[in-house]
């Protein structure tokens, strides 16, 4: 299992039956592939649909039916399409249960930076700021390291996405929960030692006596 699959499988375990879920572009999109069979969720996409289904078979694409990453999609029974104001009414208004987003940095306050690298990469925030501000639960799915450097830092040096404390960080090394007291190490990836995680983490972690291994 590669590290992205590991992260996606672990995030999928956070989804509850009946949840309305928005998956970000890239790694978070993979979560849809690993949802347990007994769990039914509806997927929201910010370009204006609830009830997004899998990629259509070749030749069955509808030019007007896409996800926020410009990929063709299908829809499931019960689906509904709407305009951008309604889409963000759902997000900002607290009607979206879970958002899963990628991250560039998360810091000891649980704050996320994921939308730009000044002077290098300025794609824009798209829907990310509204998603982090408004979703009931925010899960950050990202690799623990960018090259050699930790993405879990003392204080974000990149521009913040929101002041809101995210609810859970899932990486290829650990599951970390931002709490009032700081970042709590909740689980470690299969075969990864607590000492490995501490070495790969710039931020201070609260480490309980027993840190179970992720079940994926």
């Amino acid at each position, binding site marked *: 299992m590669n590290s992205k699959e590991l992260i996606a499988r672990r995030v999928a375990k956070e989804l509850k039956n009946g949840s309305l879920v928005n998956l970000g572009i890239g790694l978070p999109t993979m979560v849809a592939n690993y949802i347990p069979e007994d769990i039914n969720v509806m997927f929201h996409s910010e*370009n204006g649909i609830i009830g997004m289904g899998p990629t259509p078979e070749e030749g069955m694409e509808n030019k*007007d039916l*896409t996800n926020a990453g410009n990929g063709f999609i299908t829809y499931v029974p019960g689906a509904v399409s709407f305009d951008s104001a309604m*889409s*963000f009414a759902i997000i900002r208004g607290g009607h979206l249960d879970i958002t899963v987003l990628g991250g560039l940095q998360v810091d000891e306050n649980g704050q996320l930076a994921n939308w730009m690298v000044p002077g290098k990469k300025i*794609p824009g925030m798209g829907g990310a*700021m509204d998603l982090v501000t408004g979703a009931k639960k925010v899960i950050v799915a990202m690799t623990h390291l960018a090259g050699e450097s930790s993405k879990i830092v003392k204080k974000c040096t990149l521009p913040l996405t929101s*002041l809101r404390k995210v609810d859970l960080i899932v990486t290829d090394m650990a599951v970390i929960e931002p709490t009032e007291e700081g970042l709590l190490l909740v689980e470690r990836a299969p075969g990864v030692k607590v000492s490995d995680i501490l070495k790969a983490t710039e931020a201070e972690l609260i480490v309980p006596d027993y840190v179970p291994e992720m079940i994926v």
Partner: protein
Amino acid sequence: MEIISVKDVTKYINDGDTLLIGGFLGVGSPDAIINEIIDSGKKDFTVVGNDTSFETNGIGRFVKENKVKKIIASHIGTNPETQKQMIEESIEVELIPQGTLAEQIRAGGVGLGGILTPTGLGTVVEKNKTIVEVDGKKYLLEKPIRGNVAVIKAKKADKAGNLIYSFTARNFNPIMAMAADIVIAEVEEIIETGKINPDEIHTPGIFVDYIVLGGDEK
């Protein structure tokens, strides 16, 4: 409401206009009208849209062909040309959170003096903006956005200008239809008035000034 040829759209568009342009990465984008405006040689537009699409379609072509002086959008990541021109400072780019942009345009169309949103508080978006406290909670005051012309795309129209959109091609189109002095809708099909059930209409025809029958090109 008048049905016009795509060749006639540029009569209603002037150099330097603010154009609201529908579409999400080119999906639900009025491409026949966009191509006509670009080919007309008119320029110096301020373009408001969700994103700048790709270099070859939708709003992306405006950037690539240097017709734009300012872009107001939530995302420019799929169009390297926008980022290049932004860094060279040959165009001005204002990035706005997607939900805020939608509500600013809506406010512009529905007679509101702005909106209060928590999105962007404590981030670079907050810069130069007024913070308003309501019942102990802080919000950013975001002002309305209007255009001289809105150029939108719908699936079908009747001859009264009532519009129906298709799936995720709806996106910003119905909001923009309310927020400009002149609204031009490109549609794939025009049917007789009275043939659409009133319950199924998304945009009332009173918002629409001109209809253009375009292709169904992506």
